[in-house]
């Protein structure tokens, strides 16, 4: 019996492993790309340059220029692309759902190949932006940069897998999280950060930060952990089950089923929009007006953000939770939803149920985004930057996720010890 559980690894060992890997990954952020010597100047410019800042907030990459600059970004893009392919092409869907482990391994392989591809593409963009910082730039530099950051990004992907499999929590989320935490001081608007020295303002500002954090934590937890249950009865339960068994048999539909994906999607799109609008040479008057007025800009920004988030919440939830899929699986397991006939009625019921849940979910997400600004308005302080909010939301949901896993392990341990 002992043998079997050694393999599982006790919690402490898993935690230790995770922390060691995270430290290791952080150290990687200080390994420069060969030949890129003017790191300092780029570093200076990079955290003023919000687009690069945002990029790294979403991908767990470094905020200085290093071999880990790309972070997990290419891997995320690749997994999203593959996930869409799975939904769109039956051949891929078959691989994922019917070929078992072997099929899933194939999917993982595709994702990795695509990751390399994305890495190379992104590395060329990166090279371009680096040109001005490198003293003697030549065509070979492109390859050096590409090789360095691609390798770095893939190593990071591997590290994240090691954490997921043999550590605790989701590896890629945790890597993003530590990236965000290491940048924590940049969450706050630069001007506010400087003004913190002024004592009368600073007390209020600290109160603001605390209240924001606490309320965001609450809403984030609600959206992550809150779920509605679809009661399921199997044919077998009808014969042998007691009431208590029925109670435990359900499909949980979480409010935040889509997790942080809607936020990542929407903020990426916004990022793209803002940078491209700003660069429009002869923007029309309406956009000029918006761009000129800070307040209008904020409002416009939030509004778009909310719409995008709500849209992606619904969209992505229905992609990952297809009602007809669930209905089909119910049939396969010869189970039914309590008091609902199998077939069309079941499908309709599930769809309605999911939409209701994601409606609640998107409201919670919107609240998350609005809270800092509303509170700021109420207290009369400068709000957190939008990118700061995004990375806070990400961090909270990752923390939530990890805590849940740790708790689950503790439960297992408790269970083991008690017996």
């Amino acid at each position, binding site marked *: *019996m002992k*043998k*079997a*559980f*050694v*393999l599982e690894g006790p919690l402490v060992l898993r935690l230790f492993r995770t922390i060691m890997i995270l430290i290791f990954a952080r150290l990687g952020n200080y390994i420069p790309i060969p030949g890129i010597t003017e790191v300092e100047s780029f570093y200076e410019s990079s955290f003023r340059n919000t687009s690069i800042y945002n990029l790294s907030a979403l991908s767990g990459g470094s905020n200085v220029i290093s071999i880990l600059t790309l972070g997990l970004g290419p891997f995320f893009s690749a997994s999203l692309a593959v996930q869409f392919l799975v939904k769109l092409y039956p051949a891929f869907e078959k691989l994922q759902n*019917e*070929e*078992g*482990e*072997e099929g899933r391994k194939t999917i993982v392989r595709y994702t990795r190949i695509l990751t390399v591809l994305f890495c190379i593409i992104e590395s060329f963009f990166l090279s371009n932006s680096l040109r001005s910082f490198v003293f003697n730039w030549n065509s070979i530099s492109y390859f050096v940069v590409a090789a360095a950051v691609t390798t770095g990004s893939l190593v990071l992907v591997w590290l994240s897998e090691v954490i997921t499999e043999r550590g605790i929590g989701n590896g890629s989320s945790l890597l993003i999280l530590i990236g965000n935490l290491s940048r924590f001081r940049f969450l706050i608007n630069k001007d506010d950060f400087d003004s913190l020295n002024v004592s009368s303002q600073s007390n209020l500002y600290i109160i603001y930060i605390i209240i924001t954090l606490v309320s965001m934590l609450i809403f984030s937890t609600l959206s992550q952990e809150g*779920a509605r249950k679809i009661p*399921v*009865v*199997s*044919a*077998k*339960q*009808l*014969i*042998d*089950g*007691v009431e*208590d*068994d029925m109670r*435990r*048999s*359900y*499909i*949980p*539909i*979480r409010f935040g*089923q889509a*997790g942080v994906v809607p936020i990542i999607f929407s903020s990426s799109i916004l990022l793209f929009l803002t940078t491209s609008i700003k660069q429009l040479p002869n923007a029309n008057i309406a956009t000029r007006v918006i761009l000129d007025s800070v307040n209008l800009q904020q409002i416009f920004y939030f509004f778009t953000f909310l719409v995008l988030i709500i849209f992606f919440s619904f969209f992505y939830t229905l992609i990952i*939770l297809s009602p007809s899929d*669930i209905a089909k699986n119910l*049939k*396969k*397991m*010869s*189970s*039914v939803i309590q008091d609902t*006939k*199998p*077939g069309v009625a079941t499908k309709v019921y599930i769809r309605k149920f999911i939409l209701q849940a994601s409606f609640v979910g998107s409201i919670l997400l919107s609240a998350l985004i609005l809270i800092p600004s509303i509170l700021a308005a109420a207290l009369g302080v400068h709000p957190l930057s939008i990118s700061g909010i995004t990375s806070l939301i990400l961090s909270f949901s990752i923390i939530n996720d990890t805590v849940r*896993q740790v708790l*689950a*392990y503790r*439960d*297992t341990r*408790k*269970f*083991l010890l*008690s*017996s």
Partner: protein
Amino acid sequence: MLKDILRKTTQSDLYRYENIVKKINDLERVMKPLTNEELRAKTLGFRKSIEDGQSIDNILPEAFGLVREASLRILGLRHYDVQLIGGCILHDSKIAEMKTGEGKTLVAILPAYLNALSGKSVHIVTVNEYLAKRDSLSVGRVLSFLGLSVGLILADMNREERQENYKCDVIYTTNSELGFDYLRDNLVGNPSEKVQNGFEFAIIDEVDSVLIDEARTPLIISRSLETLNNIYLTAKNVAQAFEINTHYEIDKRNRNVYLNESGSKLAEKLLGVSSIYKFETGTYILNAIKAKEFYTKDKDYLVMRNQITIVDEFTGRILKGRRWGDGLHQAIEAKEGVTVGSETMTMASITYQNFFLFYKKLSGMTGTALTEAKEFKKIYNLSVDCVPINKKVNRIDKEDVVYKSLYAKWKAVLYESLSIHEQGRPLLIGTSNVKNSEIVSGLLKEYNIKHSLLNAKPENAANESEIIAQAGRKGSVTIATNMAGRGTDILLGGNPDFLTKGELRYIFRSIVLSLDDMTVPKNELINNLKYKYVISEKNRLDVEELIDKLKSAYTVPEKNRIGVEELIENIDESFQPVDKFEILIQKLYEKTKERYVRECLAEKEEVIQLGGLHIIGTEKHDSRRIDNQLRGRAGRQGDPGSSKFFLSFEDRLIEIFTTGGLKNMIKELDLEDDQPVEGKIVSLSIESAQKRIEDKNYQVRKQLFNYDNVLNLQRKVIYDERDRFLSLTDFKGLILQYLEKLVDDVVAEMERSENQEDKSRGIVLFCKKFICLPYSIDPELLSNLSKEEIKIFLNDQVKISYELKEIELESLRVGLSQSLEYAFLLQSIDQVWKEQLTRMELLKESIGWRAYGQRDPLLEYQKEAYRIFAIQTRKIRHSASHLIMCSTSFA
């Protein structure tokens, strides 16, 4: 590079073993001159030095050398160096992969002897009783010669025999006996009824069969429930009325069926119910469809004596007494029109995966383990080491050929058989099931080719050893299912020992016959001998004389008949006769055997000249190991041989599991019927399909293992508690503890109800109904008490009334209270455990839905299992308390 490193590390182990072997070889000179008594005395010496703190690793070389010498003296078999290496691997708690015919049984006694020296029982586990018995009677003798006791556990042994045998130093038995004995030991009502005593060291023969193929099959002890015969028949009729794809769909890969909407509607119409999902019938109908679609007579099961008997997919043998679970067996019974068995309720169950991990030390041997090395390591923490082969394998494995249709395949098999048979080479045709073996047999019959048929049908299975003994003879043709796989040793030219024993048996039976009927002349008797050519003119007289003498020596026919048959079964060169009759038998044995050995050797030479045994495979199994087992029948100990697989595109494996490419290829090629496809690509694509299935099955087993671990922990808790009940002589303390906890539970439960009145009423009801207080309590009295006060009050009440109960029972009969309490405790725990098994089964089924909420089902399972278990353990206390407190109402 990694492979390089891996090779080096395994080699370094090998290097170490080779050094040990050198030491053992050096010791041989020391062992040789010792007398038998001196050898035996060594065992005592070893035991002593172990008691004095010597580690058994230190005495390994000497002990192995001793066993080798003893084996040479007793069996005439000296361990090869590679067999000693095999022994070292087993001793190091690893799996030794050894090719067929390399003498696994002889290897096992090395570590068995060594480990038994420290006074711990060693279990040598085989896959069937025949092997257990054979091994214990043959190589087991070496161990008994060295002063160890050798036990044997067989299915038909009673409790006393088992207890006796389990006490031995080395025990030969089967995996299922071990598992079932464990389960039965945990259902006994008295500690003295237990038969097993601890799990120290197990050496599992054919370890892949036990730990991988059978890993998913749980051992189950169940009790019959009342039967609902009708419902199975009704379900069968509904299933017959259904049509595939209109009313239901099937998933061939996962052996699953499901109704679609028109199917549900039709079922509802036929049964006259509003929704089949609201009634139990649904499961029965699904089972009936499964029985119809996936289970074929003479393939998956046999119909014997009005019963459905399962045929094991891996070994081709019937699984006596085993039933498919969840009502499937009954559905098949209904389909075949035999008596439908009663429904059963699981009382206790365990899987081999869990069971064998009880052993402190585990090792195993087989011819086919490497393909599954990852699984052995991950689940059982066993590494696989290859034992170097003594003689190079000389078998030619020909490329697979694939035909367009089944018909073309069988035709090709027939032609291949004819041509091989013409050459006079012995031929073994492996088939995947009983049905196919009969198809081949029918084909060969049409061409008047004499052949033997070995499959699970009892009339064929009875001749198994004889068929195998003859299978290597010149011109013999054997058709077999997977039964001719593991443990089947086909000797080229025939097996002299088997042939001799067959002859002896025949002679003896004839004698018995002629004694019954004195008119049968001796001459006729000899003329009727089966293997007539043995009795050549030259020694005819000798044999006649012997038979005459036998007749007169054989005095008490009825009583001795079975004894003599057994004697013939077990006789060999070292047999020590005790009376005149036995001396005669032995003489006859020696005479006949001498003759056969000569015959067989000559024939063997001839067969080797022809090219040895040829194997024809007619279908690929899901697992490559099973195919390799079949191939492994040829090319034993360096003999020549060959093998070839004939497949078709209509085979299940190829139809369902190969990827599109192969199928497209066949379409494009537009083949003639008798034009096979062959070549590397075909073989590779089939192999990759097999790999995929193996991997899928591995995932399932791993999953099952993870889930099972949870149940296993609960099982341990329950069984430990049960053992505590068994060991107690006075239950008063335990029951008072239970009662106190019961009161806690009740008060906690009452606290939940909102108003005071409900609370008081609940407690009053509890006192009256649940613990049967002989007086009623005034609810008014309770209303003013605090929670703690209520607790104290109830505790007093319960304690007093328990004391009263004891006195009351004791006054009826002295000791009555003890025996009643004992019975109630066991009843409660067994009942609860039974329930728990069902509940966990249901939980496992429904927990998968949690994945939709992105929760890990395994973690959710652990959590829920923990909660359910907490409820159930509470129930043990409650139920026992209730039964005891209210016992007079039954009296």
